């Protein structure tokens, strides 16, 4: 490699956050200079983030753990970034998802926000760099700050949607701040008990200290906060409204990333900060979490069944998916954890794909109530094709990626003897199948009323031979929305085939050896 690039490449851990952030500010500034520059700046920012992420992915795959000392101060005195295989994987997922959605959402963002579009780009990029920072950082307080920058941007991005969006966003803000504050309170307890803010340092101190009630309380506070942030049942109340009424461009990335990153944080805290014995030895906490997840799966799935619009239904599926990961992780065995970690990646991809497909439908049809979906297989075959693939992934049908994470989750459940969780996962598959086939049936068998009237005479004249529907003209979404969607749909298949490699290279090394 060229020496200058070498020089530069060692900074990837910080560049993944700072490159998007700086260029996001440039995008913001473009709003007062020349609006045309806003999109290229945001695009370039996320692209450089993606390059940095892939670079780290390659590096960590070789067994390296990247540690970066901010301002040159060694931890625990300064802030450090620490990127292992799994965080590199999640960072890549974040950047890829954000970049693809940015491209796909450009048209709708420019249309919805017109002169405020640069601000949208800026907030979008701030949001993404906040998430990336949360994944990369090793400092628990820095994590809080990054969490807040991501959340604040998220509130604003959501609040700009439908008429009901501001109220939903305000509820999200209240709930999100409670969650973040609980986390901060946990940080306070940890700090008081150890005097440190660096995860690795704290882990060492806690190892020496042994069981400590203060740390148990810190653990409870952090977990409560994160559960609220990730919309786990029963504190999921903010999510459906917020995601339903947010603009599509926002919902896509939010649904794909926010909850997933919170789960990542939970996993990271449990695996590399708190002593494992605290989380799993008594079995009470772990069992309670798995049962909570089990109930959450059923509750979310049944609520999804009751919805009348597609996007809203999907938001409940997001809640269900969160419960998969929480439950899988707290099974406490290797298969379950692998499943939860793999599902973070897979769920980000499939959620993005399905929401992008819905965004395409909404862009064409203007609405997404089930009655607005008639005849879609004829008018939007490609978008629907992608929707079918993402639907299959969510149901968990091979060879889409959703199947393989479910595989690990269920086998984890079987190993741990948690039959309730296993049954919940299987039932969720069936309910998801019902949900999606409801949509597919409407899109396949029905035609919009106005076109039907037009063709009905011809239809009746030869009812014997000419079955089926009157043919509708194709009206696909614009190409800039379609191509990212198709790429994502293919990604879902590709991820499925790459499962083995991903698990071996990136997930397995990140699970501590004592987890069997």
């Amino acid at each position: 490699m060229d020496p200058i690039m070498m020089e530069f490449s060692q900074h990837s851990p910080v560049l993944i956050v700072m490159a998007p952030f700086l260029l996001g500010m440039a995008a913001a500034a473009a709003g007062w200079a020349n609006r045309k520059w806003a999109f290229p700046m945001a695009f370039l920012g996320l692209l450089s983030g993606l390059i940095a992420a892939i670079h780290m992915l390659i590096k960590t795959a070789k067994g390296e753990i990247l540690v970066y000392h901010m301002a040159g101060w060694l931890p625990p005195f300064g802030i450090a970034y620490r990127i292992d295989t799994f965080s590199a994987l999640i960072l890549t997922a974040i950047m890829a998802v954000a970049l693809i959605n940015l491209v796909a959402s450009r048209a709708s963002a420019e249309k919805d926000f017109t002169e405020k579009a640069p601000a949208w780009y800026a907030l979008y990029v701030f949001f993404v760099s906040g998430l990336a920072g949360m994944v990369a950082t090793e400092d628990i307080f820095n994590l809080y700050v990054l969490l807040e920058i991501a959340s604040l941007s998220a509130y604003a991005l959501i609040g700009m949607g439908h008429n009901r969006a501001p109220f939903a966003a305000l509820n999200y803000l209240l709930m999100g701040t409670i969650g973040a504050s609980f986390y901060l309170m946990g940080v306070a307890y940890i700090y008081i008990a150890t005097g440190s803010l660096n995860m690795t340092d704290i882990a060492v101190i806690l190892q020496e200290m042994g069981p400590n009630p203060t740390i148990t309380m810190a653990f409870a506070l952090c977990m409560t906060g994160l559960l609220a942030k990730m919309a786990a049942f029963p504190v999921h109340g903010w999510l459906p409204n917020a995601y339903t009424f947010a603009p599509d461009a926002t919902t896509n990335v939010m649904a794909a990333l926010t909850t997933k990153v919170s789960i990542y944080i939970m996993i990271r805290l449990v695996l590399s900060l708190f002593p494992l014995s605290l989380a799993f030895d008594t079995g009470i906490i772990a069992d309670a979490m798995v049962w909570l997840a089990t109930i959450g799966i059923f509750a979310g799935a049944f609520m999804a069944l009751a919805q009348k619009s597609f996007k809203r239904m999907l938001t409940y599926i997001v809640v269900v998916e969160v419960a998969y990961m929480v439950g899988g992780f707290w099974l406490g065995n290797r298969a379950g954890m692998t499943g939860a970690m793999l599902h973070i990646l897979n769920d980000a991809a499939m959620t993005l794909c399905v929401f992008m497909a819905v965004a395409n439908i909404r862009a064409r049809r203007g609405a997404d109530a089930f009655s607005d979906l008639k005849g879609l297989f004829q008018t939007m075959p490609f978008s629907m094709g992608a929707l079918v693939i993402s639907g299959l992934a969510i149901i968990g049908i091979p060879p889409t990626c959703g199947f393989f994470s479910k595989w690990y989750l269920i086998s984890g459940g079987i190993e741990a003897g948690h039959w309730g969780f296993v049954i919940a996962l299987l039932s969720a598959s069936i309910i998801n199948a019902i949900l999606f086939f409801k949509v597919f049936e409407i899109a396949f068998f029905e035609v919009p009323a106005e076109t039907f009237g037009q063709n009905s005479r011809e239809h009746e004249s030869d009812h014997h031979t000419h079955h089926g529907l009157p043919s509708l003209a194709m009206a696909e979404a614009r190409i800039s929305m379609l191509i990212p969607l198709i790429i994502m749909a293919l990604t879902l298949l590709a991820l499925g085939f790459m499962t083995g490699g991903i698990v071996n290279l990136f997930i397995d090394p990140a699970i501590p050896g004592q987890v069997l």
Partner: protein
Amino acid sequence: MKKLALILCLFAGGLLLMNAHYLPMWGDPASPASTHVSPYFIENAYEHTKTPNMVAVVLADYRSYDTMFEAAVVLAAGFACFFLLRSRARGKKGGHHYYRHIPTGVTIKIEEGGKLPAENSKVFRSIDALWTPYDPIIQTTCRCLIPFLQIYSLYVLAHGHYSPGGGFQAGVVLGATIILLAISHNLKTSLKRMSERTAALWSIIGVFIFAGTGLLCLLLGMDYLNYEVLAPLLLSDEAMARSHSILIVEVGVTMAVMAVMVWIYYNLSSAGQQDEGL
């Protein structure tokens, strides 16, 4: 709901209170928080940066990365308010605008094509029977006060190395002066002094000064925000380079905080219209 909330809070609060007796005693100098990391800061801060204010050192050097994102949070909040509220729809939809009559302080809504009453017309007084005459004392006092406040804020900024103070505090005071101008006069006046565009660009530039300093360190071959490497540029040794850099980033923070405070005020007070709202 209320009872449930009460039970929940009492239960959780009880748990935390019962747990509280495991926490160290109030003011205990031997508690882990005071013995693990913090002695390092207290002992080395001056040596490393030649700056007596340890809080400033930790803020802008040891944990400068946090602080940068703190400024970024402020920036994001500014953009969030702008993004959510700002509408320049005047003339497009609704077609009305607001006019505030300065002598009476009455704000009236003028519909599309509506005519503005004459400056000295009785209309305004009849709208608000209890109007208090416009008070030149407040206006004048504020006009006198503002420059001093601004100088004070610069002092808070510049003297942050030696006394409590620093970028955030200076920024807030500076922002308050502009807001004071808006309150004592009206929004138009302060917008003339500091337009929305200026506020937005200042906030971006402020954060950029901070982040850019870090980037410069990175480009010069050291870790992000490691000010040591700036020593040749600042014509000083490494410790002094850190000291100077702390000032530079504090200036950036001041600009950002000031601009965002003013910007949020503009948007909140006029509900995003930025005309004679409040």
